[in-house]
């Protein structure tokens, strides 16, 4: 079963020192390499900062653009990963090991057809 992990940008990423960011990114690379090797992560990506986001709003068939991300700044999404595991407990167990000093991980099941 597939689960999407939505990863927020933590304090370390927003306001941390360059040294801290480098250290955490190093841990993240290692983590993703290991999760991919164990076939838990099937897809993952880091996103450019929220300031680069454009939101397309569709209303009654017409569309307009907003020069900002979907979500509030304090919970800006910094990346995502798709897991392939047996159940929610396994997905949560992996999410808990996400190696950042602070941040949130939303675990959302993916509809399978």
């Amino acid at each position, binding site marked *: *079963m597939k*689960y999407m992990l939505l990863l927020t940008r933590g304090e370390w990423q927003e306001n941390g020192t360059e040294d801290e960011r480098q250290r955490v990114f190093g841990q993240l690379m290692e983590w993703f390499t290991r999760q991919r090797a164990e076939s838990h992560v099937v897809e993952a990506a880091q996103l450019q900062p929220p300031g680069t986001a454009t939101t397309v709003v569709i209303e009654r068939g017409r569309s307009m653009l907003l020069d900002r991300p979907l979500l509030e700044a304090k919970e800006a999404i910094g990346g995502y990963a798709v897991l392939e595991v*047996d*159940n*929610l*407990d396994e997905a*949560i167990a992996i999410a808990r090991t996400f190696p950042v000093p602070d941040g949130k991980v939303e*675990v959302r*099941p993916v509809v399978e057809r």
Partner: protein
Amino acid sequence: MLDRVFREEAGRLTASLVRLIGDFDLAEELVSEAMVEALEHWPSQGVPDRPAAWLLTTARRKALDRIRRQARYQEKLALLAALSDEASSRPDDRLSLIFTCCHPALSRDAQIALTLRAVVGLTTQEIARAYLCPEATIAKRILRAKQKIVAANIPYRVPEGPELKTRMDEVLTVIYLVFNEGYLATAGPTPLRRDLVLEAEWLAILVTRLMPEEPEPLGLLALIRLHLARWPARLDTSGRLVLLQDQDRSLWDRRAIGEAIRLIERAAARRHPGRYQVEAAIAAAHCEAPTWADTDWREVVDLYTLLLAIDPSPVVRLNRAIAVSHVDGPAPALAEVDQLAGTLDRYHLFHATRAALLRELGRAGEAAAADGMALELTRNPGERALLEQRLAMSEPTEA
């Protein structure tokens, strides 16, 4: 009689069906339908020799009927056809059900509602009445939880290894909260809800039976039973709440107290102390004292110190301070209580405790103000009556 059969069998049957067909809604509906059929037939035709088997057969027949109509359950057909008496009595099914209902990915409210619905077998209406919620709110809460269990694939299993302890804490917390709401309702017309306490007792019995090696469920069961043993003394003849110190101890059920204390001893023999065992030991210390004045306060303080090491929460510190006042006097106790001012500002018993200590110290004006604060913060009718009475009695001494 019917009630007991239903209670015992409904949970068991639901658990077996959930395991087999992996669908909460369907399992519950089938069990309710079988119960309805039993209610229609048993009173006139008599209770069958083996009521459990009768219910199982009926639920299975209904399941097969329904599944034939629903293509997406095709693959479950074979499983159901194989469902036998033996399968329905697999002891671990209900345990998996409890752990699933109390899964940490569900909100506390959802865990409680789902456990009362699926494990205890209360109707949505009964749960709504117990928690003074509109029935639609409870129904929506349960529906959302079930949908999440299915969509997110929350596994139906008893956790193992290091996970077991934290997951069991979750289950015991749910039972404890049901007990607590019954012990002293947060609101509503009745200050005490014995029905909810009995549901909590039943759940605790179930968990102790399913996990006989674990000491904490025994501790929780003992705690609930000690409070039940004191129940007849908790209200006076006009239905007003009576504080522990003023209770008529001849109304306490001595036999039940003795049995609960044996449960604590059985748990203690496992040598894994936990918060429920310690809370039960504190309740036992009160139950064993012939009068309030004869309470072994030294022991009570020691037990609270132990509890504080396990659960360093401000409410435990508050309770410990009360015990301290009986050993060292009101002044040092008040000093401890005052340290909690920031964290417990919104907790009525913080203010009520301060009021009692201030009154002992002869500071009547401050005591009345603290009682007033407490009164503003509780909606329990019994507690409100007590506080109002205390305020009325203290008025003449106020400057």
